[in-house]
């Protein structure tokens, strides 16, 4: 059964084409990227990207493989661009080691020195930064990420979340002006995640330039003042998070609902204005069918379904978005 409903909301013109999405380079820009490209043979990883980043938190958002990590690696100087220039705090990103007094990097890769304790690892970073009191700086950094209770444990026994926090402590130990974080929330549990988000927001409010890459859309909302959307190596959109999110929410998306009485729920849901279409999907194990709803306003629909179910005394087992992958959403947002 398929129930036609209101037509999908079309994408309107707030998201501009790539050539005009670049955030302006101003005198406040601490990170200036101009015409940045990186290619490997015939494969283009980053293509002619230009942007300026000011103090505060900027999210580098895009699906896996979009070019976020490559861009961050070029910002740190680990990777040489094929074309273009990067200046951070007025210095070239590659070739001037004095810049690293002002930069901290939280790399995505998990490998650490397994034989060191967290305290030794952070202290090593403090010593290499030539800090006058590496012990005090180490304690401060470990305290910020709440790793002091586990500071004397070997890194080899750490969970992914603990490794992430230790890497953050190492990146913060010298109190850098610019902090580059590649998927810092990966592997963290909800509590650690909340605290890291709080830390990222606080650093932004203190006037640091924090660039955080992520492929999780809703995560970014909680800490980023601005976002740069990267897709297929190009800067696809830039600006305030909410404007871009609103565009994404306008995208009709499929939601699967499993409940104790799908037919009765369907009969009421078809009256919902946010619904585009509705169909039943048979269960593979011979049980009750699922409902697959296409909605033009996913947030409103997520609010409506539990309310309808509660009114009809129907138990909800699952509400899951089916096409919520960033790749499809980004393709919609940037109109390609």
């Amino acid at each position, binding site marked *: 059964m398929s129930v036609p409903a209101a037509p999908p909301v079309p994408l309107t013109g707030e998201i501009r084409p790539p050539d005009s999405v670049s955030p302006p380079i101003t005198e406040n820009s601490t990170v200036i990227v101009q015409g940045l490209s990186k290619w490997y043979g015939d494969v283009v990883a980053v293509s002619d990207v230009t942007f300026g980043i000011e103090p505060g938190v900027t999210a580098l958002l895009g699906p896996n493989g979009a070019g976020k990590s490559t861009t961050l690696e070029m910002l740190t100087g680990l*990777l*040489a661009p094929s074309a273009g220039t990067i200046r951070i705090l007025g210095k070239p990103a590659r070739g001037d*080691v004095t810049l690293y007094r002002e930069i901290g990097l939280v790399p995505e890769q998990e490998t650490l*020195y397994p034989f060191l304790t967290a305290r030794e690892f952070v202290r*090593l*970073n403090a*010593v290499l930064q030539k800090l006058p009191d*590496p012990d005090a700086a180490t304690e401060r950094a470990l305290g910020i990420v709440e790793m002091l209770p586990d500071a004397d444990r070997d890194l080899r026994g750490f969970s992914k979340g603990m490794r992430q926090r230790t890497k953050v402590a190492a990146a913060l130990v010298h109190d850098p002006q610019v902090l580059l974080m590649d998927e810092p929330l990966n592997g963290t549990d909800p509590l650690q995640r909340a605290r890291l988000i709080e830390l990222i927001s606080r650093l932004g409010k203190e006037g640091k330039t924090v660039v955080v890459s992520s492929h999780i859309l809703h995560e970014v909302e909680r800490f980023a003042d601005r976002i740069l959307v990267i897709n297929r190596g190009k800067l696809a959109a830039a600006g305030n998070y909410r404007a871009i999110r609103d565009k994404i929410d306008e995208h009709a998306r499929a939601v699967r609902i499993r409940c104790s009485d799908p037919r009765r729920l369907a009969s009421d849901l078809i009256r919902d204005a946010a619904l585009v279409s509705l169909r039943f999907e048979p269960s593979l194990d011979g049980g009750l069918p699922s409902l697959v709803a296409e909605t033009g306003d996913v947030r409103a629909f997520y609010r409506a379904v539990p309310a309808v179910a509660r009114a009809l005394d129907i138990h909800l087992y699952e509400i899951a978005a089916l096409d919520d992958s960033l790749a499809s959403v980004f393709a919609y947002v940037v109109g390609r």
Partner: protein
Amino acid sequence: MLDPLPILGLTLRQFIGGRAIRIVFLFSLVPALFALIYLLEPGGTTAREFFAGIFQEFIAPTLLPIATLILATSALGNEVEDRTMAYLVLKPISRARIVLEKFAAVAAAVTLLLWEGTLLAYLIAMRGDAGDNIDQLLAIFVAELVGVVGYGALFMAISLIVPRALLAGLIYSLIWESLFGRFIPGIRLISVRHYVQSIYVRLIDNPAIELDEAMRLVPALIVITLLAAATLAIATWRLRTMNLE
């Protein structure tokens, strides 16, 4: 951790916890095993002759380059491969300092292991008259140290340039130096081994111990020093320009 030389301290700890150093340690005991066999059946050879033979035929051509190769390629190459190098290079320190501290760690670790194995073999082979041949032991110690410096710098540079550095190092020492060096005399002049053996021969200054076309002591030391300086400069340049993804 050593604060003035943190990368040296870090590298030594990497070695201590790793498999490579255990292999080198076991390998360094092979001369002692030969010394034990010699004790059981001297076959008319004096202890001094035996010890000279073991240096010229085993330590210099095989043990010294391979032990150095194993640790030198792991010091920089492994950190590039597992991407921990980012924690060192993204610091306000020169790439030359990273290379030099890594090199110092390699040189210290390999030299100590070689000296420990050589001393043990010496004590076993010489038994009661160890004091009479101390000049020979010291000459081997110096030659081993010089060899570690030459090979260590060369193999560290190779580890940043060639993807399979261990294989490249083995080809250099076993095929280039050992095989080709035997048939083509000119190859000796571009072989670390020839300078190491020359230094040993010149230091003991004994007509009974010979080496074809042995270099004089000072030129041999200068060549090894220049080789180490040039290859460490190449390693520094490579670390500065390479992509660390």
